[in-house]
């Protein structure tokens, strides 16, 4: 029975083969890096999507195809490029960012920006032209019209941010390369995320730990989805 097996699992969960604070520190690092990267990415992506959705300029098609290509860009290559940039000989070498959370944020920013921009752009261009015309003839300035379109596209933009967050939090390759999967001597995570920890634990044969971390990761993603959907829900509209 599900209830019985859940009860049997409780002692196993209480007797986990890792020290106190380990899992919590990994969750904190994962969230810190992903949330910050996605926030920065959103601040860049949404205005870019608005610009692409409203303005006509030479090279617009090219910019769009670069963004679409970026959606499928291999994350290990991004990690490698960021590693070169922050390494001692790289252009950002003097900042000493190698194997830090900041370097991980940089690579996740690069990975999350294309999907957030592309999906936001699709949502913005999908807004009915009639709504734009209405905002304009009712006396709206260009900024007013843009705000109306953003509001109409809000569910699509929320989806875009979720997609970006999904890509960031489940990322392994690039954060492993630029972050190094490091813990301090007391076993507390410095640059170890849920994904890199799962990879390490599984390789070391610590399947139970890996499974727990995997469950935590899935729960985190589901929670963030639920929160975003709740905020985007019609129940809280004006």
């Amino acid at each position, binding site marked *: 029975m599900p209830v019985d097996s859940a009860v049997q699992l409780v002692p196993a969960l209480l007797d986990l083969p890792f020290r106190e604070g380990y899992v919590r520190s990994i969750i904190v690092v994962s969230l810190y890096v992903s949330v910050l990267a996605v926030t920065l990415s959103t601040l860049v992506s949404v205005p870019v999507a608005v610009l692409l959705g409203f303005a006509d300029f030479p090279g617009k098609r090219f910019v769009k195809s670069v963004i679409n290509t970026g959606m499928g860009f291999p994350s290990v290559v991004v990690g490698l490029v960021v590693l070169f940039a922050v390494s001692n000989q790289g252009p950002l070498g003097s900042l000493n960012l190698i194997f830090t959370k900041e370097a991980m944020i940089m690579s996740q920013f690069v990975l999350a920006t294309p999907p957030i921009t592309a999906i936001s752009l699709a949502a913005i261009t999908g807004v009915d032209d009639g709504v734009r015309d209405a905002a304009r*003839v*009712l*006396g709206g300035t260009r900024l007013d019209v843009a705000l109306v379109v953003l509001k*109409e596209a809000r569910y699509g933009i929320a989806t875009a941010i979720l997609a970006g967050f999904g890509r960031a939090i489940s990322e392994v390759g690039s954060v492993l390369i630029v972050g190094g999967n490091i813990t301090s001597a007391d076993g507390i995570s410095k640059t170890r995320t849920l994904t890199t920890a799962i990879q390490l634990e599984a390789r070391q044969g610590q399947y139970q730990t890996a499974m727990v971390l995997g469950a935590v990761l899935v729960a985190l993603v589901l929670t963030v989805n639920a929160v975003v959907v709740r905020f985007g829900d019609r129940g809280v509209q004006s």
Partner: protein
Amino acid sequence: MLRVANASRSYGDETVLRNLSIEVGSGEVVAVIGPSGVGKTTLLRLLALSLEPDEGTVALDGTDAWAVDAAERRALRRRVGMVFQEASLFDASVARNVEYGLRVRRSWRDRLHDEVAGLVRSNGVADAVHEALDVVGLTQKVVQQADSLSGGEAQRVSFARALAYEPDVLLLDEPTSDLDPRNTAVIEDAIGEARDRGIGVVAATHDMHQAERVADRVAVLLDDGITEIGPTERIFEDPSDERTRKFISGELVY
């Protein structure tokens, strides 16, 4: 008075309107009748100051809209309202839709203040919004979401949205072509109410009976020009132009 004088407009090689003149004064309803695709919408966009004529002028109370800078043109444009064939309401409450025109005319500071005040005061809907909804008989729907309205109700809200900020001129592009008779009657009454308030109305329609019911003057737009313009009764009973006569009697088929 909104006046288009000797205006022409082409799209590429195709001339849609040629040397066209029309005007609407305050408290007057002008119906523009003609078959589909003849340029009624282009004419309305000229009147709405959102499309520049290739030749000729569009002037509101004597100010040529295309001889002034963009800011001044926007100020002129804000005195003109427009209702489209599709309601195109915003995904928000009826109240938010109707107050939109009023809101964008306020300073950012005032708008921010309104938003914050709106969080503590509940549904303090401005009198203008209530009045505009009253004209179309939908005051009871003020707190509903726009997407919960029927098509006819949505179009009535769209009319109220254009009426709320009291434009000098109201342009209607086939406003009732998708509506049932009851909602059509409400819109036609609202056109009368707009006239009583001193608003000049230009209604493009292919429904000649509607033109006969609501208009003081009728302009007949065929192919690329106005064949005849004059008092409604005379146009329908004694048109002087042969093509107008044929169009009205149904002999001229498009």
